[in-house]
């Protein structure tokens, strides 16, 4: 079977052929293509390992919501809606500060509980909870398409929705993900790239490998979310964090640009109102 990832058609055809013959095992039906084409040094979707997929952000996508935002990172599409403050439901623990609830819906699947808690703890670190005592702030995230790095996109979407709603926050959070295959870093990996790395296989990845997700507060230079799975050396992890910081600043530039555009709109509406 061909291992060349550029000729995807061929792979598909041979798959079909093999299936007809009924001889292939399930493991070899979909061979995992290499992360980088050795000839061109480009990834499957044509970017270099250090490139980020195109990002599109939009705020105020839902009328009537307190705050809403839509973020696209490549094929990952996330919609976030913020509502509140609300009365606490009776069963919830009483608290002198505000409480945040995060609800993540993944279209055609279920977000793992661990990831939901990660996002929740990140939001708790970002929002100034003291400003709304005994009230509940709800953050609804809908991952409309999971094309990889969905936690990072969720953080960006939630951050923008919070900015849109005017909820007091310490800083605008951004997030990004990195994939390490034992040799190189692949920033903002797509779903197929994440799936192609098998972290459980002990024989293959002696040299390590892992997925690192980082949420970042750019102006305060602080990390609000950090999770790593796999196996990496401490030095590698440190350099991974450096490149993640750089990516986060790039993502933040997009968000900042969008915010500036937004503020231009504010000025226009203000002058209209004044007239």
């Amino acid at each position, binding site marked *: 079977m061909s291992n060349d990832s550029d000729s995807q058609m061929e792979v598909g055809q041979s798959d079909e052929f093999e299936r007809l013959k009924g001889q292939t095992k399930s493991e070899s039906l979909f061979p995992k293509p290499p992360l980088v084409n050795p000839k061109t040094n480009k990834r499957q979707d044509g970017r270099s390992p250090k490139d980020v997929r195109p990002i599109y952000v939009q705020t105020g996508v839902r009328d009537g919501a307190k705050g809403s935002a839509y973020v696209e990172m490549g094929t990952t599409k996330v919609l976030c809606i913020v509502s509140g403050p609300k009365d606490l439901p009776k069963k919830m623990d009483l608290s002198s500060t505000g409480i945040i609830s995060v609800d993540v819906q993944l279209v055609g699947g279920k977000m793992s509980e661990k990831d939901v808690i990660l996002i929740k703890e990140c939001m708790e670190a970002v929002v100034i909870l003291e400003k709304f005592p005994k009230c509940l702030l709800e953050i609804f995230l809908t991952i409309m398409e999971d094309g990889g790095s969905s936690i990072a996109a969720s953080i960006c979407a939630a951050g923008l929705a919070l900015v849109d709603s005017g909820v007091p926050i310490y800083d605008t959070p951004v997030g990004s993900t990195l994939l390490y295959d034992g040799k190189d870093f692949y920033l903002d990996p797509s779903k197929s790239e994440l799936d192609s790395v098998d972290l459980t296989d*002990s024989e293959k990845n002696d040299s390590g490998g892992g997925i690192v997700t980082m949420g970042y507060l750019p102006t305060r230079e602080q990390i609000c979310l950090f999770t790593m*799975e796999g196996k990496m050396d401490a030095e590698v992890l440190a350099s991974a964090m450096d490149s993640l910081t750089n990516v986060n600043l790039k993502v933040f530039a997009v968000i900042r640009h969008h915010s500036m555009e937004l503020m231009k709109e504010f000025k226009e509406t203000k002058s209209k109102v004044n007239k």
Partner: protein
Amino acid sequence: MAEVLLSEEEKYYLVLGVAQDIRVDGRSRLDYRSGDVEVNTVTNSHGSVRIRLAETDVIVAAKVDLGVPKTETPNQGIIKFLVDCSPTASPDFEGRGGDQLAETICRILSSTYAKSSSINLKSLCIVPKEFCYIVDVDILVLQCGGNLLDVIAMGVKACLGTCEIPRASGTRYDLGKPVPVFSKDEFQFDYLDVSKAPVIVTLPRVGRYFVVDATLEEESCSKGKLAIGVAPDGSITSVDKLGKACYQVRSIAASVQMAAKVGVDVNKVLSDRINKLKLSKLHSAKPWPPKPEEGMDVE
């Protein structure tokens, strides 16, 4: 979570002490408290360990069962974790009170073990797609005196390392299906290879410093902690940020390095201990029929 309430002055005292590298019990920031591991605490399991680190006291027991492998990993065995917080540790754990803490710990453990290639799960497979071993690792928290996650991770590693997995001597075909055959000899068993298994080093930040092996009092001084899984070769297997604290990039990097350094030492001590325990187990091979256990002196 079992918590202690401290006044602001007490916290202040603790924080300033840590800043001068002298903790309340006289340790420095990178010192562990003394602990103890014993095996075969629970004799009706395939491997059990009671691990104590100062006041934290945990029993880990593994039971091995035959099962069917998962469809997505047909040639791998399964390791499951279940944490139970006994109310003996704290009245807060009465009824279902400890479930939340238990779930968090369970989550971290399974992500550390599942995604880090630390244990060769293929060695737990007998017949691909048909039979594999399912190892149920049950963790019972008897006492919680701080640093629970580290102690549990150490206990799990020691328990898996001393767990006796029956040796299948071959397969036999029954109605066209392969069936594993076990030798009748009770002493035929294998140990799991835990030479790559990680331990977890939890670093809460007290004041501006990270400390290892925090007591409950020190934990109550910090808003968040980093749980870092460290393999014996010093590589990092997982990092989890717990709680709602924020950190700077360099302080995470520094703490990861600190954890790697500490983790290698912990792993080494633990591996030595596991090997010793295995030897002692071999020497005290059980006679049949089993005699009542030799009692210790009444204390």
